[in-house]
């Protein structure tokens, strides 16, 4: 119904610039856009103008000129719906990144545990990941470790147990139970494993 075809396509350069700005995680300068698209900087500038105008007139998006570069963002008119979505998204079905899953695993198996203990096992920093887990109610702060610095201790929550279908933390699979996957079945040859 909206397919009257009256809409003029963005120019090829503008479409490329649009795609690049879409995936960029920080502002992209005209020079970089020019080198990536292979067209002159003034052409890039015209393309940016073209996108800007089109977005302003027709879309829920806009271009921002920030710190000497360009970024795509949602348009100010959409503030409310985006804010609402962000709130809702938090309570929706959650999927965890590998980093989050790893931190959660440490918290589950080694609890109570401090941030630096988690970092030590994972070998990377994890402040932001812990924030995510806290926000989703998967872990909670459970006091402080005594001693130097008295760091915060984390534990998993009841909601963690119910999400993972566990009666209690002691129901977490043991190494023996996971052996089948982890060791690609040294033991799986048949029922005859006798060390138990």
């Amino acid at each position, binding site marked *: 119904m909206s397919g009257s075809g009256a809409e003029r396509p963005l120019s090829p350069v503008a479409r490329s610039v649009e795609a690049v700005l*879409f995936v960029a995680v920080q502002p992209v300068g005209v020079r970089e856009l020019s080198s990536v698209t292979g067209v002159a900087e003034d052409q890039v500038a015209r393309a940016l103008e073209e996108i800007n105008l089109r977005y302003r007139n027709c879309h829920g998006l806009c271009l921002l000129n920030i710190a000497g570069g360009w970024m795509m963002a949602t348009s100010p008119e959409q503030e409310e719906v985006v804010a609402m979505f962000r709130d809702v998204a938090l309570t929706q079905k959650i*999927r965890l990144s590998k980093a989050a899953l790893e931190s959660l695993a440490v918290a589950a198996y080694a609890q109570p545990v401090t941030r630096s203990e988690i970092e030590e*096992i994972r070998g990377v920093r994890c402040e932001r990941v812990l924030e995510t887990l806290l926000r989703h109610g998967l872990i909670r702060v459970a006091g402080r470790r005594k001693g130097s610095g008295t760091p915060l201790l984390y534990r998993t929550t009841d909601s963690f147990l119910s*999400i993972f279908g566990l009666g209690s933390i002691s129901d*977490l699979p043991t190494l023996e139970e996971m052996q089948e996957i*982890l060791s690609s079945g040294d033991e*799986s040859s048949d029922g005859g494993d006798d060390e138990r």
Partner: protein
Amino acid sequence: MTLDVELEGFSGPLDLLCHLVETGEIQASNISVSELIRVYSDFLLRTERAGINEMAEFFSLMARLLLGKLKALLPSLPGLETPPGDEELDPGFLEEALIRYRPYRMAAAYLGDLMRSRERSFIRGNPEEGPPWYDLGDLYSLSMVWWEMVGRKKDRTGHKVQLVEEAGWDGIPVATPDEEQVESRMEELRDLIAGRGSMLLSEIIGFSGTRQLLVVTFLALLEMTRLGIIHISQEELFGDVRIRS
């Protein structure tokens, strides 16, 4: 996350068999083991698509087939217990297996196409926290991640961990040389030989320190000869062997 599919070579013996059937080199309805091996070795001599892994798997399948036949002939032969999962290996097995297998082979190709077309679009992403996603509630992933971390940590601290050791095929020892090792050795040798035009075998062996490396080197040289990458000649009896690119 992007995937990169290596479509060279075959995915296993059945894939290879399908290929042989499709190209009319073999009749699925009357396959005998000796015929199969003959066709297969003919095929090996001509093709560059089969790697060492596929060969090993192929011969492993053949070995199981032979074992099955042997048992049929000599049911009372001691020590020939059927490894679990091998019961279906009577002579009609291959055709049946092929019929069951072929749609999946097709499906794999279909998935490959899907993935390539999906790969052409990029989503916005935060590189550090990006996909893959794990569905929350997936207990086994959570647990696997933990025990892997424990394993890695033990590795780092020098303890022996048996977590990622490979088991042999039931009853049949692992016959698969590490293909990647051979392939990377092939690349090294290719560079080495290309750099000099030609080399003597004794020189190349001089570069191969351990016994394992020596074996890998020989396998790599054989494979390279088969693929026509190098030519091997011996100028006099018991003399050194010259290798040219």
